[in-house]
């Protein structure tokens, strides 16, 4: 059984240090397993978030050797390093140890109106062909782990930028054939701190554990937003 040193940023913003922990590692041991090992056997004061341990709840994203990763689905052996540095997600207000403040992240998500908007009160099924479903399906897979924001060079420099997760959520609903609120959302995201702040560094798509390509969603959103702005500029009557 191999040993790996975990160097973890431990403490609060007022007082902190990097602390080393030695963890035995086998094939299949994940970063989250290591965190539980440390908390159960070495340091019971270590704080981190985790829940489902199957990469679906989005709790456990941390910086692993400077890359944002969901701890539960990152195999230690595949990193291939003897020393692994764990830090809280970049670009978020830090609370302590590996825990950051997610309130801002969820506020941004909320601000893009990420829900289906209908002007009528439908009864019965809203039909949708498998092809129509396929148009937005991948963007529904976002687990809101926040890794994309920590990876984005723009988001870590500009706290007001809506960020990949929120913008991808906006696109997910704009691309849904059942939705009728496209322009309401475009009014929010077509903004200097919205999709136009994205410069397609595409680090979000590199970081996304669910491989949903948020960068792609933002670019498609830009095309929609451009059409929306043009129509508004030409006074073609944008319905909201």
């Amino acid at each position, binding site marked *: 059984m191999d040993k790996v040193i975990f160097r973890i940023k431990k403490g609060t913003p007022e007082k902190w240090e990097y602390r080393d922990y030695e963890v035995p590692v086998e094939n299949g041991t994940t970063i989250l397993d290591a965190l539980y090992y440390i908390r159960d056997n070495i340091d019971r004061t270590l704080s981190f978030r985790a829940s489902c341990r199957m990469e679906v*709840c989005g709790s456990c994203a941390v910086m692993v050797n400077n890359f944002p990763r969901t701890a539960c689905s990152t195999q230690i052996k595949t990193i291939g390093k003897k020393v692994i540095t764990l830090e809280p997600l970049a670009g978020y207000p830090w609370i302590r140890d590996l825990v950051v403040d997610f309130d801002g992240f969820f506020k941004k998500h909320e601000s893009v109106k990420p829900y*289906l908007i209908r002007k009528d009160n439908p009864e019965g099924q809203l*039909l949708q062909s498998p092809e129509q479903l396929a148009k937005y399906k991948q963007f529904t897979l976002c687990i809101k782990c926040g890794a994309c924001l920590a990876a984005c060079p723009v988001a870590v420099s500009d706290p007001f930028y809506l960020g990949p997760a929120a913008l991808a959520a906006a696109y997910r609903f704009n691309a849904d054939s059942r939705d009728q609120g496209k322009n309401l959302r475009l009014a929010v995201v077509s903004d200097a701190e919205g999709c136009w702040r994205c410069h397609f560094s595409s680090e979000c798509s590199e970081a996304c554990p669910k491989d949903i390509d948020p960068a792609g969603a933002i670019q498609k959103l830009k095309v929609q937003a451009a059409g929306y702005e043009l129509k508004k500029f030409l006074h073609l009557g944008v319905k909201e």
Partner: protein
Amino acid sequence: MEKIEADLLILGAGLAGLRAAISAAETDKNIKIAVISKLFFLRSHSVAAEGGTAAVLYEGDSYDLHAYDTIKGSDYLADQDAVEIFVRTMPKEILDLDHWGCPWSRLPDGRIAQRPFGGHSFPRATYAADRTGFHALHTLYERMLFYENIERYQEYFVTSFIINKEGFSGLTAINMKNGEFVLFRGKALIIATGGLGRLYSFTTYSHTVTGDGAAMALKAGMQLKDMEFIQFHPTGIVPSGILITEGARGEGGYLLNNKNERFMQKYAPQKMELAPRDVVSRSMMWEIQEGRGFTGPWGPYLLLDLRHLGDAKIRERLPAIRDIAIKFNGIDPKDEPLPVRPAAHYTMGGIHADNDTSTPVKGIFTAGEASCISIHGANRLGSNSTAECLVFGDISGRNAALYVKNARMNDIDMEKVKAEENRIYVEAFKKRGDETVPLLRRELNNTMQEKVGIFRNEKDLLDALKIVKSLQERFRNVYVEDRVMEYNTNLFTYLELDNLLEVAEVVILGAIARKESRGAHYRTDYPKRDDVNWMKHTIAQKVNGEIQLSYIPVRVTKWKPEERKY
């Protein structure tokens, strides 16, 4: 101490909690609703549900058939009038989710698709690939953002229910972010805290499912029902225990033993792999006991074979399963079968409630896995749990909103609040002995896994009771070492262990008392179902610090008990 007031408090933000919040907000736009959870709402364990949600949608299926399947699956312990309410409300819930944006999988003509599931005699599991719970929870969360009268309190760890003579009066909680003590006051409460699966060491549950609701209810003197029935899902992947959905078998997957036989032929010749979960789990354990399992470094296992489905079907219908197998086990299901073993998966029992989701305590309602309205009886059918959360979440939200309209804020007993504050902030931090949370928790998990698992007998159960009692004693020597109040996980795991120890005792006591085998509760010393003496619900209640058991009858309407064959 911070004080937060709202008309309606909803504790827990999984499918049931969020559905209740939406339903309450729709019923009455003028009441203030507070949803409280120890997690961010999207982290709730509902997110891990995979296979589907049962509902009668199409020609060929009927309410009676769904009800019959559910009742037969429950081994006739379900309350039949509750089941009828459940099956009749369910189709509307599917449509609501459709109108709110849930990406249901579709038939070529654009209608919502359904797939076969264990114990159902019609393919009625409505699904969104194999991430049904995930999509349903996200849809409800997104829809909730729509309502202005729903306040969100995320990462508030609730520690106790404050109840006085008139009924519910408040909750004490810790704001996890800064560690401050918070008092929630409200006219009514909906408990939707989910199950207690982390009692077990091999489980499909999230790390955060620790029976908090049931334990706090018990401490507050409320009644728990049928807690001895714990469902084991046949296919938890070895070694992590991550759930491999029943949908994998619904789509045609085989279970194989080390002789490469589809052994379910012997145990359930008609339904084969799609027999109810208790039947399949037991069959698997028999195969393993009789030496037809595989052995590995993480214990015995059997195989779930999906190879014959082909890569395209696996990618389309079971993408999450494929992902899990590749990411966590390094196995591509198109090339290799998956190693599986039954894993603790669901708590059929819960807080005793009526068909309208109200509990005997005035002002407290309950829904979802935390509740026991008893539609699942002794064994739940796959795809009925997400369905239950939706139906009874909806009903509880509506009823609670109506209740709140004519109710007033009860006076709160500040003595109890002060005592709770003292327990958390003074007692928990006092250095006492060398016992630690992980040590006790591991012992509890191993005890429950070995002695209160799929097969039970009097000797093991009595042993387990003794161990749990001693763990409760030893828990007094545990203390919180971490002095930093911001996000003090040491404190939270301490409180969670307290809750787990509380409910473990109820599970074991119920199991010792029930001298028969019914559904998920299988006694090797009493292997037959006994309808004469045991067709009744167990009620557990704490009286003067001791747990007392009593029994209430099962409500039977149309379906008389018969032998259960699949």
